[in-house]
Protein backbone atom coordinates (compact mmCIF):
# COMPACT_ATOMS: atom_id res chain seq x y z
CA UNK A 1 0.00 0.00 0.00
CA UNK A 2 1.15 3.51 -0.74
CA UNK A 3 0.96 6.21 1.92
CA UNK A 4 0.97 9.88 1.08
CA UNK A 5 1.57 12.36 3.89
CA UNK A 6 1.09 16.05 3.35
CA UNK A 7 2.74 18.57 5.69
CA UNK A 8 1.37 22.09 5.36
CA UNK A 9 1.73 25.42 7.11
CA UNK A 10 3.59 28.74 7.00
CA UNK A 11 7.11 29.08 5.59
CA UNK A 12 9.48 28.94 8.56
CA UNK A 13 7.47 26.35 10.50
CA UNK A 14 9.82 23.57 9.44
CA UNK A 15 7.31 22.00 7.06
CA UNK A 16 9.85 20.87 4.46
CA UNK A 17 12.27 19.45 7.02
CA UNK A 18 9.50 17.49 8.79
CA UNK A 19 8.74 15.79 5.50
CA UNK A 20 12.40 15.21 4.77
CA UNK A 21 12.98 13.54 8.14
CA UNK A 22 9.99 11.24 7.63
CA UNK A 23 11.13 10.36 4.09
CA UNK A 24 14.63 9.61 5.40
CA UNK A 25 13.28 7.35 8.16
CA UNK A 26 11.12 5.44 5.68
CA UNK A 27 14.03 5.06 3.27
CA UNK A 28 16.22 3.66 6.06
CA UNK A 29 13.41 1.19 6.82
CA UNK A 30 13.71 -0.08 3.27
CA UNK A 31 10.70 1.65 1.74
CA UNK A 32 10.54 3.45 -1.57
CA UNK A 33 10.11 7.17 -0.92
CA UNK A 34 9.56 10.39 -2.81
CA UNK A 35 9.60 13.88 -1.27
CA UNK A 36 8.02 16.71 -3.21
CA UNK A 37 8.21 20.29 -2.00
CA UNK A 38 5.97 23.15 -2.89
CA UNK A 39 8.31 25.70 -4.28
CA UNK A 40 7.48 29.20 -5.29
CA UNK A 41 8.55 32.82 -5.03
CA UNK A 42 7.71 32.73 -1.33
CA UNK A 43 9.49 33.66 1.86
CA UNK A 44 9.13 33.22 5.59
CA UNK A 45 5.45 33.53 6.41
CA UNK A 46 4.24 32.42 2.97
CA UNK A 47 2.49 29.13 2.43
CA UNK A 48 4.62 25.99 2.43
CA UNK A 49 3.77 22.36 1.99
CA UNK A 50 5.39 19.12 1.02
CA UNK A 51 4.24 15.64 0.17
CA UNK A 52 5.95 12.44 1.21
CA UNK A 53 5.17 9.20 -0.62
CA UNK A 54 6.04 5.95 1.14
CA UNK A 55 5.54 2.54 -0.44
CA UNK A 56 6.84 -1.02 -0.56
CA UNK A 57 6.57 -0.88 -4.34
CA UNK A 58 8.11 1.46 -6.91
CA UNK A 59 6.44 4.86 -6.71
CA UNK A 60 5.46 5.90 -10.20
CA UNK A 61 3.26 9.00 -10.12
CA UNK A 62 4.73 11.72 -7.91
CA UNK A 63 1.41 13.52 -8.23
CA UNK A 64 -1.69 12.68 -6.21
CA UNK A 65 -4.94 14.57 -5.86
CA UNK A 66 -6.08 12.90 -2.62
CA UNK A 67 -3.33 12.22 -0.08
CA UNK A 68 -3.93 9.77 2.77
CA UNK A 69 -2.75 11.90 5.71
CA UNK A 70 -2.37 15.58 6.57
CA UNK A 71 -0.32 17.39 9.19
CA UNK A 72 -1.82 20.89 9.28
CA UNK A 73 0.28 23.47 11.07
CA UNK A 74 -1.94 26.48 10.37
CA UNK A 75 -5.57 27.26 9.68
CA UNK A 76 -5.38 28.10 5.95
CA UNK A 77 -3.74 24.75 5.20
CA UNK A 78 -6.34 22.84 7.18
CA UNK A 79 -9.16 24.59 5.33
CA UNK A 80 -7.51 24.07 1.97
CA UNK A 81 -6.35 20.47 2.28
CA UNK A 82 -8.68 18.72 4.80
CA UNK A 83 -11.40 18.14 2.16
CA UNK A 84 -8.86 16.31 -0.05
CA UNK A 85 -7.77 13.69 2.47
CA UNK A 86 -8.75 10.09 1.75
CA UNK A 87 -11.30 8.48 4.10
CA UNK A 88 -9.67 6.70 7.08
CA UNK A 89 -6.64 8.95 6.86
CA UNK A 90 -5.25 10.91 9.80
CA UNK A 91 -5.50 14.69 10.05
CA UNK A 92 -3.21 16.16 12.68
CA UNK A 93 -4.30 19.66 13.66
CA UNK A 94 -1.97 22.10 15.37
CA UNK A 95 -4.53 23.21 17.95
CA UNK A 96 -2.24 26.00 19.21
CA UNK A 97 -2.99 27.92 16.04
CA UNK A 98 -6.12 26.27 14.66
CA UNK A 99 -9.32 26.63 16.62
CA UNK A 100 -11.57 24.91 14.09
CA UNK A 101 -11.90 21.20 13.30
CA UNK A 102 -11.46 19.36 10.01
CA UNK A 103 -15.21 19.06 9.50
CA UNK A 104 -14.72 15.42 8.46
CA UNK A 105 -16.21 12.40 10.24
CA UNK A 106 -14.63 9.76 8.01
CA UNK A 107 -11.04 10.45 9.07
CA UNK A 108 -9.12 10.24 12.33
CA UNK A 109 -8.68 13.71 13.76
CA UNK A 110 -5.80 14.33 16.14
CA UNK A 111 -5.53 17.68 17.90
CA UNK A 112 -2.14 18.52 19.39
CA UNK A 113 -1.10 21.96 20.77
CA UNK A 114 2.33 21.65 19.20
CA UNK A 115 3.41 25.27 19.65
CA UNK A 116 2.60 25.24 23.36
CA UNK A 117 4.35 21.92 23.89
CA UNK A 118 7.43 23.22 22.07
CA UNK A 119 7.38 26.50 24.02
CA UNK A 120 7.21 24.63 27.33
CA UNK A 121 10.26 22.61 26.29
CA UNK A 122 12.16 25.84 25.76
CA UNK A 123 12.18 26.51 22.02
CA UNK A 124 9.08 27.18 19.92
CA UNK A 125 11.07 26.25 16.78
CA UNK A 126 10.83 22.57 17.68
CA UNK A 127 7.06 22.59 17.08
CA UNK A 128 7.51 20.76 13.77
CA UNK A 129 9.30 17.88 15.53
CA UNK A 130 6.50 17.68 18.10
CA UNK A 131 3.95 17.44 15.28
CA UNK A 132 5.98 14.92 13.29
CA UNK A 133 6.53 12.69 16.34
CA UNK A 134 2.85 12.86 17.30
CA UNK A 135 1.87 11.90 13.77
CA UNK A 136 4.31 8.97 13.65
CA UNK A 137 3.22 7.74 17.11
CA UNK A 138 -0.40 7.72 15.98
CA UNK A 139 0.06 6.36 12.45
CA UNK A 140 3.00 3.97 13.00
CA UNK A 141 3.96 4.83 9.45
CA UNK A 142 7.58 4.17 10.46
CA UNK A 143 8.94 2.65 13.68
CA UNK A 144 9.41 5.39 16.26
CA UNK A 145 13.02 4.39 16.90
CA UNK A 146 13.77 4.88 13.21
CA UNK A 147 12.21 8.33 13.35
CA UNK A 148 14.55 9.18 16.26
CA UNK A 149 17.54 7.99 14.22
CA UNK A 150 16.54 10.23 11.33
CA UNK A 151 16.04 13.22 13.64
CA UNK A 152 19.54 12.57 14.90
CA UNK A 153 20.84 12.32 11.33
CA UNK A 154 19.23 15.66 10.48
CA UNK A 155 20.27 17.64 13.56
CA UNK A 156 23.55 16.11 14.71
CA UNK A 157 25.60 18.80 12.99
CA UNK A 158 23.34 21.71 13.86
CA UNK A 159 24.86 23.60 16.77
CA UNK A 160 23.54 21.62 19.68
CA UNK A 161 19.93 21.51 18.48
CA UNK A 162 19.75 17.75 18.87
CA UNK A 163 18.97 17.33 22.61
CA UNK A 164 16.00 19.68 22.35
CA UNK A 165 14.75 17.90 19.23
CA UNK A 166 14.90 14.57 21.05
CA UNK A 167 12.87 16.05 23.91
CA UNK A 168 10.40 17.45 21.42
CA UNK A 169 10.09 14.03 19.79
CA UNK A 170 9.35 12.38 23.14
CA UNK A 171 6.74 15.00 24.02
CA UNK A 172 5.19 14.61 20.58
CA UNK A 173 5.09 10.83 20.95
CA UNK A 174 3.16 11.13 24.24
CA UNK A 175 0.71 13.58 22.71
CA UNK A 176 0.16 11.41 19.66
CA UNK A 177 -0.32 8.00 21.27
CA UNK A 178 -3.93 6.83 20.97
Amino acid at each position, binding site marked *: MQHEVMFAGFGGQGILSSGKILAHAAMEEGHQVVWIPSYGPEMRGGTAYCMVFISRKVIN*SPVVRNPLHLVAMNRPSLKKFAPLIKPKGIILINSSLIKIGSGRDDIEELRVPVNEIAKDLGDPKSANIVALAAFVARSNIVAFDNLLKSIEHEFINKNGALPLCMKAAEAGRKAGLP
Partner: protein
Amino acid sequence: MGKVLMKGNEAIAEAAIRAGCLNYFAYPITPQSEVAEYMARKLPEKGGVFLQGESEIAVGYMVFGAAGCGERVMTTSSGPGISLMSEALSFIACAQLPAVFVNIMRTGPGLGGILPSQADYFQATKGGGHGDYRLIVLAPSSVQEAVEMVMMAFPLSEKYRNPVMILGDGLIGQMMEPVEFPENLIVKPTRKNKWAANGMDTRKSKKRNIVKSLILDPETMNTHNLLLKEKYDQIRKKEVRFETYNMTKPYKVLIVSYGTMARVCKTAVDLLKEEGIEVGLLRPKTLFPFPEKKIREAAAKAHCKMVLSIEMSMGQMVEDVERSVQGKCPVRWYGKCGGEIPPPKELMEMIKGLKL
Protein backbone atom coordinates in the same frame (compact mmCIF):
# COMPACT_ATOMS: atom_id res chain seq x y z
CA MET B 1 28.13 3.94 -0.46
CA GLY B 2 24.49 3.09 0.23
CA LYS B 3 21.38 4.98 -0.69
CA VAL B 4 21.17 8.67 0.12
CA LEU B 5 18.12 10.89 0.03
CA MET B 6 18.87 13.71 -2.36
CA LYS B 7 17.24 16.46 -4.35
CA GLY B 8 17.44 15.99 -8.11
CA ASN B 9 19.43 19.20 -8.54
CA GLU B 10 21.99 18.24 -5.90
CA ALA B 11 22.26 14.72 -7.29
CA ILE B 12 22.95 16.12 -10.77
CA ALA B 13 25.74 18.27 -9.33
CA GLU B 14 27.25 15.40 -7.34
CA ALA B 15 27.09 13.08 -10.37
CA ALA B 16 28.90 15.64 -12.52
CA ILE B 17 31.69 16.00 -9.95
CA ARG B 18 32.02 12.23 -9.71
CA ALA B 19 32.11 12.02 -13.49
CA GLY B 20 35.22 14.18 -13.42
CA CYS B 21 33.66 17.51 -14.38
CA LEU B 22 35.76 20.20 -12.71
CA ASN B 23 34.45 23.18 -14.68
CA TYR B 24 30.99 24.50 -14.02
CA PHE B 25 29.63 27.89 -15.04
CA ALA B 26 26.11 29.05 -14.31
CA TYR B 27 23.71 31.85 -13.56
CA PRO B 28 20.98 31.20 -10.96
CA ILE B 29 17.40 30.53 -12.04
CA THR B 30 14.58 28.63 -10.35
CA PRO B 31 13.98 25.66 -10.38
CA GLN B 32 17.63 24.60 -10.77
CA SER B 33 19.58 26.99 -8.51
CA GLU B 34 20.53 24.21 -6.08
CA VAL B 35 22.91 22.82 -8.70
CA ALA B 36 24.95 26.03 -8.58
CA GLU B 37 24.69 26.20 -4.80
CA TYR B 38 26.04 22.66 -4.51
CA MET B 39 28.80 23.27 -7.04
CA ALA B 40 29.84 26.52 -5.34
CA ARG B 41 30.31 24.59 -2.11
CA LYS B 42 31.86 21.38 -3.42
CA LEU B 43 33.86 22.15 -6.58
CA PRO B 44 36.60 24.23 -4.91
CA GLU B 45 37.20 21.32 -2.49
CA LYS B 46 37.92 19.11 -5.52
CA GLY B 47 40.22 21.63 -7.17
CA GLY B 48 37.56 22.59 -9.69
CA VAL B 49 36.21 25.93 -10.86
CA PHE B 50 32.76 27.29 -10.22
CA LEU B 51 32.15 30.66 -11.75
CA GLN B 52 28.87 32.54 -11.74
CA GLY B 53 28.63 34.40 -15.03
CA GLU B 54 27.18 37.87 -15.39
CA SER B 55 24.48 36.40 -17.63
CA GLU B 56 23.60 33.17 -19.37
CA ILE B 57 25.06 34.59 -22.59
CA ALA B 58 28.42 34.84 -20.84
CA VAL B 59 27.99 31.40 -19.30
CA GLY B 60 27.37 29.85 -22.72
CA TYR B 61 30.70 31.20 -23.97
CA MET B 62 32.54 30.20 -20.79
CA VAL B 63 31.39 26.66 -21.58
CA PHE B 64 32.56 27.13 -25.20
CA GLY B 65 36.00 28.25 -23.98
CA ALA B 66 36.49 25.44 -21.49
CA ALA B 67 35.23 22.83 -23.96
CA GLY B 68 37.57 24.20 -26.64
CA CYS B 69 40.47 23.62 -24.25
CA GLY B 70 39.39 20.00 -23.92
CA GLU B 71 38.10 20.37 -20.37
CA ARG B 72 35.08 18.46 -19.07
CA VAL B 73 32.48 21.19 -18.56
CA MET B 74 28.83 21.57 -17.61
CA THR B 75 26.24 24.26 -17.12
CA THR B 76 22.68 24.12 -15.83
CA SER B 77 19.79 26.48 -16.32
CA SER B 78 16.08 26.67 -17.06
CA GLY B 79 14.20 27.72 -20.22
CA PRO B 80 14.86 31.49 -20.30
CA GLY B 81 18.53 30.94 -19.50
CA ILE B 82 18.88 28.24 -22.15
CA SER B 83 17.41 30.70 -24.67
CA LEU B 84 20.28 33.06 -23.92
CA MET B 85 22.82 30.23 -24.18
CA SER B 86 21.44 29.02 -27.48
CA GLU B 87 23.76 31.11 -29.62
CA ALA B 88 26.75 29.57 -27.86
CA LEU B 89 25.17 26.13 -28.21
CA SER B 90 25.06 26.56 -31.96
CA PHE B 91 28.72 27.71 -31.98
CA ILE B 92 29.77 24.74 -29.79
CA ALA B 93 27.91 22.29 -32.03
CA CYS B 94 29.54 23.81 -35.14
CA ALA B 95 32.99 23.68 -33.55
CA GLN B 96 32.26 20.04 -32.58
CA LEU B 97 33.02 20.34 -28.89
CA PRO B 98 31.82 18.13 -26.05
CA ALA B 99 29.85 19.86 -23.28
CA VAL B 100 26.90 19.05 -21.05
CA PHE B 101 23.93 21.39 -20.72
CA VAL B 102 21.12 20.74 -18.24
CA ASN B 103 17.70 22.34 -18.64
CA ILE B 104 15.40 21.94 -15.63
CA MET B 105 12.30 23.15 -17.42
CA ARG B 106 9.84 25.70 -16.05
CA THR B 107 6.67 26.99 -17.63
CA GLY B 108 6.84 29.41 -20.54
CA PRO B 109 6.84 31.18 -22.90
CA GLY B 110 8.45 34.42 -21.74
CA LEU B 111 9.60 34.56 -18.17
CA GLY B 112 6.62 32.27 -17.58
CA GLY B 113 6.50 30.63 -14.18
CA ILE B 114 8.77 28.46 -12.08
CA LEU B 115 6.66 25.30 -11.91
CA PRO B 116 7.45 22.08 -13.82
CA SER B 117 6.94 22.02 -17.58
CA GLN B 118 8.06 20.21 -20.72
CA ALA B 119 7.58 23.13 -23.05
CA ASP B 120 11.24 23.36 -24.09
CA TYR B 121 11.01 20.17 -26.16
CA PHE B 122 11.27 22.01 -29.47
CA GLN B 123 14.08 24.19 -28.13
CA ALA B 124 16.09 21.12 -27.10
CA THR B 125 15.39 18.75 -29.98
CA LYS B 126 14.99 21.10 -32.94
CA GLY B 127 17.68 23.58 -31.99
CA GLY B 128 17.09 26.71 -29.91
CA GLY B 129 19.95 28.30 -31.78
CA HIS B 130 20.51 28.87 -35.48
CA GLY B 131 21.82 26.59 -38.17
CA ASP B 132 21.81 22.87 -38.91
CA TYR B 133 22.82 21.37 -35.61
CA ARG B 134 21.48 18.78 -33.20
CA LEU B 135 21.93 18.09 -29.52
CA ILE B 136 21.80 14.63 -28.00
CA VAL B 137 18.86 15.05 -25.61
CA LEU B 138 18.43 12.80 -22.56
CA ALA B 139 15.22 12.90 -20.52
CA PRO B 140 15.40 11.50 -16.96
CA SER B 141 12.25 10.50 -15.09
CA SER B 142 13.72 9.99 -11.61
CA VAL B 143 16.56 11.34 -9.51
CA GLN B 144 18.44 8.05 -9.95
CA GLU B 145 18.08 8.24 -13.70
CA ALA B 146 19.22 11.88 -13.69
CA VAL B 147 22.44 10.71 -12.01
CA GLU B 148 22.91 7.92 -14.53
CA MET B 149 22.26 10.27 -17.44
CA VAL B 150 24.79 12.83 -16.19
CA MET B 151 27.25 9.95 -15.98
CA MET B 152 26.40 8.95 -19.53
CA ALA B 153 26.30 12.50 -20.91
CA PHE B 154 30.02 13.26 -20.57
CA PRO B 155 31.33 10.21 -22.46
CA LEU B 156 28.56 10.54 -25.06
CA SER B 157 29.41 14.18 -25.69
CA GLU B 158 33.09 13.26 -25.99
CA LYS B 159 32.46 10.28 -28.24
CA TYR B 160 30.56 12.40 -30.77
CA ARG B 161 32.21 15.72 -29.94
CA ASN B 162 28.75 17.20 -29.65
CA PRO B 163 26.90 18.98 -26.82
CA VAL B 164 24.50 16.80 -24.83
CA MET B 165 21.45 18.25 -23.13
CA ILE B 166 19.76 16.73 -20.12
CA LEU B 167 16.13 17.79 -20.31
CA GLY B 168 14.49 17.47 -16.92
CA ASP B 169 11.48 19.29 -15.55
CA GLY B 170 11.11 21.31 -12.35
CA LEU B 171 9.89 18.30 -10.42
CA ILE B 172 12.97 16.21 -11.29
CA GLY B 173 15.11 19.06 -9.98
CA GLN B 174 13.10 19.72 -6.83
CA MET B 175 12.04 16.25 -5.70
CA MET B 176 14.04 14.10 -3.29
CA GLU B 177 14.44 10.40 -3.91
CA PRO B 178 16.88 7.77 -2.72
CA VAL B 179 19.89 7.59 -5.02
CA GLU B 180 22.83 5.30 -5.29
CA PHE B 181 25.94 6.62 -7.01
CA PRO B 182 27.65 4.04 -9.19
CA GLU B 183 31.12 3.18 -7.89
CA ASN B 184 33.03 3.79 -11.07
CA LEU B 185 31.55 7.00 -12.29
CA ILE B 186 34.69 8.60 -13.64
CA VAL B 187 34.99 7.81 -17.28
CA LYS B 188 38.34 8.25 -18.96
CA PRO B 189 38.44 11.31 -21.17
CA THR B 190 38.76 10.49 -24.85
CA ARG B 191 41.86 11.56 -26.76
CA LYS B 192 41.47 15.24 -27.28
CA ASN B 193 44.92 16.29 -28.46
CA LYS B 194 43.79 16.09 -32.06
CA TRP B 195 41.35 18.93 -31.68
CA ALA B 196 41.59 20.72 -28.30
CA ALA B 197 43.30 24.10 -28.09
CA ASN B 198 45.14 22.96 -25.01
CA GLY B 199 48.67 24.19 -25.68
CA MET B 200 51.46 23.03 -28.02
CA ASP B 201 53.38 21.58 -25.08
CA THR B 202 50.73 18.88 -24.62
CA ARG B 203 51.66 17.05 -27.82
CA LYS B 204 54.48 16.10 -30.13
CA SER B 205 52.83 17.32 -33.32
CA LYS B 206 53.63 20.79 -34.59
CA LYS B 207 50.10 21.26 -35.93
CA ARG B 208 48.05 23.99 -34.31
CA ASN B 209 44.54 23.02 -33.20
CA ILE B 210 42.08 25.73 -34.10
CA VAL B 211 38.61 25.89 -32.58
CA LYS B 212 36.24 28.05 -34.63
CA SER B 213 32.79 28.24 -36.11
CA LEU B 214 33.31 30.74 -38.91
CA ILE B 215 33.47 29.02 -42.28
CA LEU B 216 33.06 31.52 -45.13
CA ASP B 217 33.93 29.34 -48.09
CA PRO B 218 30.68 27.83 -49.45
CA GLU B 219 32.18 24.52 -50.39
CA THR B 220 33.92 24.07 -47.02
CA MET B 221 30.73 25.09 -45.22
CA ASN B 222 28.73 22.53 -47.16
CA THR B 223 31.32 19.83 -46.47
CA HIS B 224 31.25 20.71 -42.80
CA ASN B 225 27.47 20.45 -42.70
CA LEU B 226 27.67 17.07 -44.44
CA LEU B 227 30.15 15.94 -41.83
CA LEU B 228 27.79 17.05 -39.06
CA LYS B 229 24.87 15.35 -40.77
CA GLU B 230 26.78 12.09 -40.97
CA LYS B 231 27.45 12.36 -37.25
CA TYR B 232 23.79 13.01 -36.46
CA ASP B 233 22.80 10.06 -38.64
CA GLN B 234 25.20 7.86 -36.66
CA ILE B 235 23.65 9.14 -33.44
CA ARG B 236 20.18 8.34 -34.81
CA LYS B 237 21.32 4.82 -35.62
CA LYS B 238 23.20 4.01 -32.43
CA GLU B 239 21.99 6.03 -29.48
CA VAL B 240 18.20 5.54 -29.31
CA ARG B 241 17.08 4.66 -25.79
CA PHE B 242 13.59 4.04 -24.42
CA GLU B 243 11.61 2.08 -21.85
CA THR B 244 8.43 0.10 -22.50
CA TYR B 245 5.68 -0.47 -19.95
CA ASN B 246 2.79 -2.94 -20.35
CA MET B 247 3.54 -3.20 -24.07
CA THR B 248 3.42 -7.01 -24.17
CA LYS B 249 -0.36 -6.82 -23.67
CA PRO B 250 -2.83 -6.24 -26.55
CA TYR B 251 -3.13 -2.51 -25.82
CA LYS B 252 -5.80 -0.47 -27.55
CA VAL B 253 -4.07 2.78 -26.72
CA LEU B 254 -0.35 3.44 -26.84
CA ILE B 255 0.92 6.34 -24.73
CA VAL B 256 4.17 8.08 -25.60
CA SER B 257 5.38 10.20 -22.69
CA TYR B 258 8.70 11.17 -21.07
CA GLY B 259 10.13 12.49 -17.82
CA THR B 260 7.84 13.15 -14.85
CA MET B 261 4.77 12.94 -17.10
CA ALA B 262 5.65 9.35 -18.02
CA ARG B 263 5.66 8.38 -14.33
CA VAL B 264 2.14 9.70 -13.91
CA CYS B 265 1.15 7.79 -17.06
CA LYS B 266 2.52 4.55 -15.57
CA THR B 267 0.17 4.88 -12.60
CA ALA B 268 -2.70 5.61 -15.01
CA VAL B 269 -1.79 2.45 -16.96
CA ASP B 270 -1.92 0.45 -13.68
CA LEU B 271 -5.30 1.95 -12.71
CA LEU B 272 -6.75 1.19 -16.16
CA LYS B 273 -5.44 -2.37 -15.96
CA GLU B 274 -7.45 -2.87 -12.73
CA GLU B 275 -10.53 -2.03 -14.79
CA GLY B 276 -9.57 -4.47 -17.54
CA ILE B 277 -8.35 -1.84 -20.02
CA GLU B 278 -4.91 -2.49 -21.47
CA VAL B 279 -2.82 0.54 -22.34
CA GLY B 280 0.83 0.43 -23.40
CA LEU B 281 3.42 3.07 -22.59
CA LEU B 282 6.59 3.91 -24.45
CA ARG B 283 8.90 6.29 -22.64
CA PRO B 284 11.65 7.84 -24.75
CA LYS B 285 14.82 8.27 -22.69
CA THR B 286 16.47 9.99 -25.64
CA LEU B 287 14.40 12.71 -27.29
CA PHE B 288 17.07 13.15 -29.92
CA PRO B 289 17.56 10.59 -31.29
CA PHE B 290 13.82 9.84 -31.06
CA PRO B 291 12.66 6.18 -30.92
CA GLU B 292 10.89 6.50 -34.27
CA LYS B 293 11.18 2.89 -35.41
CA LYS B 294 9.92 1.41 -32.14
CA ILE B 295 6.92 3.78 -32.07
CA ARG B 296 6.09 3.03 -35.71
CA GLU B 297 6.15 -0.73 -35.03
CA ALA B 298 4.16 -0.39 -31.82
CA ALA B 299 1.51 1.76 -33.52
CA ALA B 300 1.21 -0.64 -36.46
CA LYS B 301 -0.05 -3.50 -34.25
CA ALA B 302 -3.60 -4.52 -35.20
CA HIS B 303 -4.90 -4.07 -31.62
CA CYS B 304 -3.57 -0.50 -31.36
CA LYS B 305 -6.39 1.95 -32.15
CA MET B 306 -4.80 5.21 -31.05
CA VAL B 307 -1.45 6.72 -30.08
CA LEU B 308 -1.50 9.42 -27.41
CA SER B 309 1.33 11.87 -26.83
CA ILE B 310 0.97 13.03 -23.23
CA GLU B 311 3.23 15.94 -22.35
CA MET B 312 3.43 19.00 -20.12
CA SER B 313 3.32 21.22 -23.18
CA MET B 314 0.75 22.36 -25.67
CA GLY B 315 1.72 19.61 -28.11
CA GLN B 316 5.38 19.52 -29.11
CA MET B 317 6.55 15.90 -28.93
CA VAL B 318 3.30 14.93 -30.66
CA GLU B 319 4.84 16.19 -33.92
CA ASP B 320 7.65 13.64 -33.60
CA VAL B 321 5.14 10.96 -32.64
CA GLU B 322 3.06 11.73 -35.76
CA ARG B 323 6.22 11.65 -37.86
CA SER B 324 7.12 8.27 -36.40
CA VAL B 325 3.66 6.71 -36.71
CA GLN B 326 3.46 7.74 -40.39
CA GLY B 327 -0.32 7.61 -40.50
CA LYS B 328 -0.51 3.98 -39.41
CA CYS B 329 -2.79 4.92 -36.52
CA PRO B 330 -4.60 8.08 -35.32
CA VAL B 331 -2.39 10.26 -33.11
CA ARG B 332 -3.75 12.62 -30.43
CA TRP B 333 -2.16 15.00 -27.93
CA TYR B 334 -3.10 15.50 -24.29
CA GLY B 335 -1.37 17.84 -21.91
CA LYS B 336 -1.26 20.76 -19.53
CA CYS B 337 1.26 23.52 -19.41
CA GLY B 338 0.60 25.87 -16.51
CA GLY B 339 2.79 24.05 -14.01
CA GLU B 340 0.09 21.73 -12.73
CA ILE B 341 0.77 18.10 -13.59
CA PRO B 342 -2.36 16.15 -14.51
CA PRO B 343 -2.87 13.41 -11.86
CA PRO B 344 -3.30 9.72 -12.83
CA LYS B 345 -7.08 9.73 -12.37
CA GLU B 346 -7.49 12.60 -14.80
CA LEU B 347 -5.52 10.66 -17.43
CA MET B 348 -7.55 7.54 -16.69
CA GLU B 349 -10.88 9.35 -17.22
CA MET B 350 -9.57 10.98 -20.39
CA ILE B 351 -8.48 7.62 -21.83
CA LYS B 352 -11.77 5.95 -20.86
CA GLY B 353 -13.60 8.72 -22.71
CA LEU B 354 -11.72 8.20 -25.99
CA LYS B 355 -13.81 7.12 -28.96
CA LEU B 356 -11.74 4.25 -30.35
